């Protein structure tokens, strides 16, 4: 380890300790509160015991607190990385390192009790790689593997903890063209088997019945029928209307993921209070479910009163969420609503604390070099639970190894 890095590391260790036990004061920030207070210029943030103790001007901090001068730069809540397999998949095409999907585990075919949380590994390299770009949370997705019911996941705070789960459990159901092979080839069959599964979850099957669910699966699915959050992957407008009706019928809190044609049924989504997690870069008819894909989808949904957030950048490229938000902002959504879609809105949708900077909120926030939606800018310091996160990852180590133009020893000795 070279001298400079040693000093930085020591500083970080001491700051972490100080921040954890005592207080951290960020001075002179442009604070995007994501609350009714709006965006506050030249504001100080006092952080104590992992929470925001105070927002204001010329705050006084105890003598032993750590101070960070924001020099007028923006601070936002830590961002939401979308639905990913962070901590579940190390490398997508290295199958043994992939834990986000269950294929067939004997029969019966549907396993809503499959829950990816138990596979979560906070040491997985995509986590710090994502975190240092300003991301604090991700919803762990259970991808459709063997059936249209993918299983369960939950939001995780990307602070490196083994059990940093927050918010409610979430069930994932895949619909439409992309799931056509998982339910007999017809989307009508998707609803047929979903209704059968719901019916099974409400009764005990008789001996000899052909069942879709195990006993545990019946219990798991039944639990969601009391306002449980269910993420439905669907693009086509007609499928989205089916989701709204299905969710109402069975007491589910539906969230649409994908929603390329959601703008076409924006009023129905707003009335049913069904939020949409969309990918604002999707403007191509990638399938016949997405003929209506367009760049101002997010703007139109927001204007109709639908709560919007973003997902679609995947696991390794989760940091691309910032670009998704920026493109939505530039196509009618506007920067403030785009930031809300990365912060406050996902916290509300999935019921986790965070996404706002206000007194008592978790001190999960990011200091940016400039406009957080501009791609030439970067996260300068990520703070989760009041701790200054080391701005290091496997990728910054590789960068630092190859940045010097010449080394006297082979580069394997640069570390």
């Amino acid at each position: 380890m070279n001298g400079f890095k040693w000093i930085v590391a020591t500083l970080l260790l001491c700051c972490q300790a100080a921040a954890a036990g005592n207080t951290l004061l960020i001075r002179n920030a442009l604070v995007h509160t994501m609350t009714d207070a709006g965006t506050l210029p030249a504001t100080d943030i006092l952080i104590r015991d992992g929470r925001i103790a105070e927002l204001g001007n010329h705050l006084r901090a105890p003598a032993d607190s750590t101070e960070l001068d924001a020099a007028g730069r923006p601070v936002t809540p830590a961002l939401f990385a979308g639905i990913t397999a962070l901590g579940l998949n190390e490398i997508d095409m290295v199958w043994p390192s992939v834990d986000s999907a269950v294929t067939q585990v004997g029969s019966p075919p549907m396993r809503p009790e499959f829950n990816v949380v138990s596979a979560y590994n906070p040491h997985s390299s995509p986590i710090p790689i994502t975190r240092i770009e300003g991301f604090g949370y991700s919803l762990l997705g259970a991808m459709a593997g063997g059936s249209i019911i993918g299983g369960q996941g939950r939001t995780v705070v990307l602070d490196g903890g083994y059990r940093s789960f927050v918010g409610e459990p979430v069930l994932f159901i895949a619909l439409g063209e992309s799931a056509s092979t998982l339910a007999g080839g017809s989307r009508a069959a998707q609803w047929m088997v979903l209704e059968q599964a719901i019916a099974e979850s409400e009764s005990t099957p008789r001996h000899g019945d052909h069942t879709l669910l195990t006993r545990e699966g019946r219990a798991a699915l039944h639990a969601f029928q009391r306002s449980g959050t269910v993420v439905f992957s669907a693009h086509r407008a007609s499928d989205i209307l089916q989701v709204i009706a299905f969710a109402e019928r069975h007491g589910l809190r539906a969230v649409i993921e994908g929603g390329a044609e959601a703008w076409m049924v924006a009023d129905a989504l707003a009335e049913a209070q069904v939020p949409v997690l969309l990918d604002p870069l999707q403007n191509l008819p990638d399938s016949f479910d997405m003929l209506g894909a367009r760049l101002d989808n997010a703007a139109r949904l927001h204007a109709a009163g639908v709560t919007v957030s973003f997902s679609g950048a995947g696991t390794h490229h989760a940091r691309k969420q910032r670009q998704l938000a920026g493109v939505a902002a530039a196509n009618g959504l506007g920067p403030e609503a785009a930031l809300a879609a990365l912060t406050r809105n996902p916290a509300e949708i999935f019921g986790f604390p965070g996404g706002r900077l206000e007194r008592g909120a978790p001190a999960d926030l990011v200091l940016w070099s400039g406009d957080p939606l501009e791609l030439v800018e970067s996260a300068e310091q990520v703070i989760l639970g009041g701790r200054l996160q080391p701005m290091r990852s496997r990728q910054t180590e590789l960068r630092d190894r190859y940045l010097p133009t010449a080394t006297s020893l082979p580069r394997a000795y640069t570390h």
Partner: protein
Amino acid sequence: MLKQACAALLLLGASGTLQAESAFPSTYTPLISAPTLLRNATLLTGDGQRLEQTDLLLENGRIAWVGNGDVPPGTREIDASGRWITPGLIDVHSHLGVYPSPSVDAHQDGNEMSDPVTANIWAEHSIWPQDPGFGKALAGGVTALQILPGSANLFGGRGVTLKNVYSTSYQGMKFPGAPHGLKMACGENPKRVYGQRNKLPSTRMGNVAHYRTEWIAAQDYIDRWARYEAQLAAGDEEATAPLRDLKLETLAGVLQGEIIVHMHCYRADEMMTILALAEEFEYRIGTFHHAVEAYKIADELAQQQVCGALWADWWGFKMEAYDGIQENIALVDRPPGGCAIVHSDSPEGIQRLNQEAAKAMGKGRRAGMDIAPEHAIAWITSNAARSLGIEHMTGSLTPGKMADVVVWSDNPFSIYSKADLVFIDGALLYDRKDPARQPVSDFELGQLQEVQP
């Protein structure tokens, strides 16, 4: 005499040039356009300059002058105050048309996965000109693009460079005078595809053995044609021409310097192996594509004048992409002579090459490299043109070059910036404010009729 002429024609054919020019020739002709004066913009010329409050005249499909000059009568003037102008963007790695939208099974035409050596195939013969992706790329400022076959094969086949102008046939899009590319692939993809079939190659060493075998065959093919030519020159009336072999014709075109090699390769060590292979068979690698580890050998690439066509931030989707870093483009760009290119390999990415370049610029700056917009624009214009062998025709705002030009609403490296106007050969083919100047592919036309506002 006639026989000799035919033979000479065939001989030229062996080199590959003739096929590029005479078989499936370009039928593209620029649209007629009035002279256009773009006034008072910030110009990023593509060759390193930034010119403030500058005028630019497009005339007869060419860039007539930058700065000051005569304005012919009938010139249309556009006030570009506060706006930015760049050369048309160029993507060296696209699969538009061969993997078009919608991506249904019937449209999977980009990878001839039936043999590891398909140097005989031409990507252009798979192109569906109605891909909606061309129009979206145009709205992102892309005026030229290379369509490549996929990377399943060691020798994937010929790539073709297009003007991004809709036409009923791909020949109507084909960039006149652009050389063919040859798509080749390293690493995981070929060995996975053929290894699963218990066929060579199933390992990286199998990949290299197979390349060498084919290059030896190509050398022999060139020799056979040379012997035939010598016999003809000596007046041997009985000489018979060797049978044309489409695979070897393509490979011979590379060895004779007429077809540019576009080498899909991720790992630094494999790229070094490939450079040594090129030395053994005396051909040049034009560009390494994807090359997520190019930063580890940036000096070697610059010394050998090999470009790196790279993503800003892709990594980790497979083992050989595990060491990708966001400073890759900036580090490949850093040494003198470094040739960094932002490529897309994606119907989404091709719409936002400027944003991908912005990411790379930002990360390079944070790592201490001073990268100005007038420098970074080369990654998506002039360096890309060099990679495709069309730098003498397009890729910079140089008088005499094709008038492939984009007027941006703002600094193109800002997320809020949009292409307002896109000119190809001087013709206005995209206007963000005018639906009549926005193309709609046959596929998109008339869809979603039932939707009521």
